[in-house]
């Protein structure tokens, strides 16, 4: 599995200035503002759902995930709990088990009170092969089946949305697997992205700190 042989993974966060350059260079108006500033002179009337959560909260993503225990879960269902999120797939044999171990290392490094309330969400790229049953088998195989663990599958559209929100890039490869960047993210109790790191076998300190801040 090529997808499993992940090396030299580089942070792929892009400068927003490129978009400005695009707007400016083509003779159109270029009043592009980045960041979450409000529209000037405009009244915001957020939807009731939006008003309960911060502007950048991933709890606004309405995707329904099917877990390896056969439960249906949305990110909003996990409100009040910090969530450690990563994306992988079950038939990936090298990188993905390392991602699971990385999540496990973060979990084990948490103070006990934090550990008890932190949810672990591992969403699969493989919307066809990774049924809840396949993910359940996978959870057993990697010995990660405690209450905190949620191996999950969803629609291809929702997987793409979540990956984009987390800055995870992926593409199906000719062998039927997925090439992907390795990202571990932490959402706080309100669903805001408070930590994100890329690469395998990274130090857990920052992720632990991010969970404990909340």
């Amino acid at each position, binding site marked *: 599995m090529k997808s499993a042989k992940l*090396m030299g993974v580089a942070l792929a966060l892009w400068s927003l200035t490129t978009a400005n350059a695009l*707007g400016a260079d083509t003779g159109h*108006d270029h009043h592009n503002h*980045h960041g979450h500033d409000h529209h000037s002179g*405009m009244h915001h009337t957020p939807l009731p759902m939006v008003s309960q959560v911060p*502007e950048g909260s991933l709890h606004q993503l309405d995707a329904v995930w099917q877990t390896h225990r056969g439960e249906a879960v949305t990110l909003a269902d996990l409100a009040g709990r910090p969530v450690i999120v990563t994306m992988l797939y079950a038939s990936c044999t090298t990188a993905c088990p390392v991602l699971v171990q990385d999540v496990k290392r973060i979990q084990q490094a948490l103070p006990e009170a934090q550990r008890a309330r932190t949810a672990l969400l591992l969403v699969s790229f493989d919307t066809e092969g990774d049924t809840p049953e396949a993910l359940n088998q996978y959870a057993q195989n990697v010995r990660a089946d405690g209450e905190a663990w949620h191996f999950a599958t969803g629609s291809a559209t929702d997987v793409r949305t979540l990956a984009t929100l987390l800055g995870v*890039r992926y593409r199906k490869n000719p062998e039927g697997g997925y090439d992907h960047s390795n990202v571990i993210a932490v959402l706080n109790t309100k669903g805001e992205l408070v930590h994100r790191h890329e690469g395998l076998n990274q130090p857990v300190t920052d992720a632990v700190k991010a969970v404990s801040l909340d």
Partner: protein
Amino acid sequence: MGLPTVQFLGVVGWGLLMAWATDAHATEPPVTVPEGTFEHAVLLDRDVQTEWVDTFRVDPRPVSRADYAAFVQAHPAWRRSALAGLFQDGGYLKHWHSDLEPNGEPDAPVVHVSWYAARAYCQAREGALPTLVQWEYLANLWRTLNEHSDEDYANAVFAWYGEQRPTALRDEALGVSGFIGPVNEWLEDYQLLLGNGDQIDFGGGSCGDTGRLIARYDSAHYATLLRYQMRSNISPETTASNQGFRCVYP
């Protein structure tokens, strides 16, 4: 093309939604793109040089402001005053006169829409954003059927990103237009992940890395690489004045 007349009659709820969905299609029916082989100009994966593309249907041109106004009318969550910062950068539909009134010509492509918004629009029409392969395959057909030389194509692309106004290229093939034109288009999987054998995303996709991955070192391939690269660099919440989209359908 304008808003379907029925929308001005005060029809509400499902009636409006259905009228929008059916009339929008009736006004601008999607065009069927024939199946065929796509030759990658940019080798995202070292081992994949060509791939088969199944037939699909596509909007004949980028989604218009009138079309988008009908969408936000039917889907209040995507109105300017409602859309959260998670899904846009603060400039969403910023030049519109109000939540429901576009600025400029109703037929002009809608701009200042984030990737999230573009996808929501296409989903509401039971479509999706084109994949990178679908769009680039179509762009190749467009070049071939319009008989654009590699040099003319390259010059048009470089002009698009440069100081000059874009070179006017004949822009019609299969009844589809809008390429290398007024807007850059959002794609479902526009962010590049580069593979080189065992290494994935080995260089983060900077220009120096992609440069060694183009299939041929001529100006047309460089032009395509530039488009891939610039497109990949745009973050999904961006709402730019030259960023629009069109949808595809099964």
